[in-house]
């Protein structure tokens, strides 16, 4: 029987089961239960848990673990993830695989503790310096989150990149029934350091960035081609297609089904990977669609940029893209329905 579990705890246990054997990080609401749980749990399975002196130290310890081919994890939120960006850029540059969990909370600077999706741009673009992307998974239920932990490592190791599990404060704090995945036997990646000096030392001025760039471009193109994930419903005959992920995506699915029952031809694309963005999902949309509508928990509208680009790629018609932004929390089904009607009567204007 599926058990009621808190999101953060279920995610932490799923990480242990996925073979994670190093956690290093620094606490911050609403992500703290992940490390609190692992502080007791990782030693039980022979893993290492380190409460680092800062987020910077934590991500650098993850670089160490990843260099040795161990499944290494860190988690944080808001400004804590900002502090880890240098390390994420280094992991990406060294082609080391690791997973970073962002339990997203709302606001700029120190921000607030509210559940939100305001870090969409940062996670999908890469918040550190350079020319890299992270694979970004965005679960809409605790069940989906626990299944995405092992997927995050598989993808990170396949492409030698960093995977980000982008959850939300509310998903971390809520409880619902969950079936935990089975245990994976932890194994060291063969490319990890083995204690012998078998690698050729390459200094910063020995690198051929032009040559590297070809491989870099190929790698990210392959991820974009192969790893788009989404769920969609009712897009083939839709007049309007909603695009929304995470908990707002789940609320939007409820709104879409109610609107369908009321006679509105609406559909939903729920991205499961925020990067690569599921552009392919947009190829299935009714060619006569009148608009696409993002539902987002941020103030300015971030997802709408990707949704607008994806519809542009798949249609030569100039299809309007609207953004319903609810700042923080999970938008109620009735608010989404009411705002949809404001789009129909012209009260809410398109963004693009």
């Amino acid at each position, binding site marked *: *029987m*599926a*058990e*009621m579990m808190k999101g953060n705890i279920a995610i932490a246990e799923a990480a242990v089961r996925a073979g994670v054997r190093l956690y290093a990080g620094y606490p911050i*609401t*609403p992500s703290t239960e992940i490390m609190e749980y692992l502080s007791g749990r990782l030693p039980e399975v022979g893993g290492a848990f380190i409460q680092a002196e800062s987020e910077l130290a934590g991500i650098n310890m993850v670089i160490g673990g990843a260099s040795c081919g161990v499944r290494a994890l860190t988690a944080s939120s808001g400004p804590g993830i900002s502090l880890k960006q240098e390390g994420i850029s280094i992991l990406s540059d060294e082609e080391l695989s690791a997973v970073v969990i962002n339990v997203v909370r709302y606001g700029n600077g120190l921000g*607030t*503790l*509210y559940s939100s999706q305001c870090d969409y741009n940062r996670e999908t673009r890469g918040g550190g310096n350079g020319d890299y992307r992270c694979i970004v998974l965005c679960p809409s239920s605790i069940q989906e989150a626990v299944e995405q932990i092992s997927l995050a490592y598989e993808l990170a190791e396949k492409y030698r990149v960093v995977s980000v599990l982008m959850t939300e*404060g*509310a998903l971390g*704090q*809520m*409880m*619902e*029934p969950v079936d935990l995945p089975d245990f994976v036997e932890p194994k060291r990646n063969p490319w990890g350091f083995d204690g012998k000096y078998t690698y050729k030392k390459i200094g910063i001025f020995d690198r051929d960035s032009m040559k590297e760039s070809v491989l870099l471009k190929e790698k990210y193109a392959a991820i974009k081609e192969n790893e788009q994930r989404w769920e969609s419903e009712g897009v083939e005959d839709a007049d309007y297609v909603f695009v929304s992920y995470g*908990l707002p995506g*789940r*609320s939007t*699915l*409820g*709104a879409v089904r109610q609107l369908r029952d009321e006679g509105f031809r609406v559909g939903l694309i729920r991205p499961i990977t925020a990067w690569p963005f599921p552009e392919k999902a947009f190829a299935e949309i009714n060619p006569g669609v009148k608009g696409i509508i993002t539902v987002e928990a941020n103030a300015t509208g971030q997802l709408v940029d990707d949704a607008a680009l994806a519809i542009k790629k798949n249609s030569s018609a100039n299809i309007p893209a609207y953004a319903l932004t609810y700042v923080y*929390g*999970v*938008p*109620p*089904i*009735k608010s989404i329905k009411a705002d949809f009607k404001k789009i129909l009567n012209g009260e809410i204007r398109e963004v693009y």
Partner: protein
Amino acid sequence: MKEIVFAGFGGQGVLTSGLIISEIAVNRGDNATWIPSYGSAMRGGTANCTVKYGRETIYNPAQEEPNLLLAMNEPSFQMFINIVAPGGIVLVSDIVNCDLNVRDDVKVVKVPSSAISQELGNPKGANVVMTGAIVKLMGDFSKEEALAGMERMFSKKGKNRFAEANVKAFEAGYAAV
């Protein structure tokens, strides 16, 4: 799908009351979600959680329009009275002494949960008294289903030693409405 908001002072056990109801639902094979207000709360401040349960898919786990509001103190009553669904129930404890007749489209039920739990010699059990009242008022679970779910919830938390006191508190609340 049903929605209940549990609200009161931190320490009154409203989050636990919500957990019991969600466990009862899941134990019976229903879907359920439990979501707390979290963050900048402090001991003695207000706390609340929202539980949704039912056979169908639960789309939005967050607060929308509760069928029942449990208000264990006055600030909770004031804060949530206006979001209760028309035709819904407002269950208040005996420490709530403000004017309760502010809406004519909801049913207000007062249960002396503090007095009952004191009489039972279990002053911390007022939340479980109210849980019993909620099960009866909602009418979605039999008493046996509810007691089985509650027992499971507390045994998972390693709190079996309070089982008898909890059952007594639950029964008293169940009988009080």
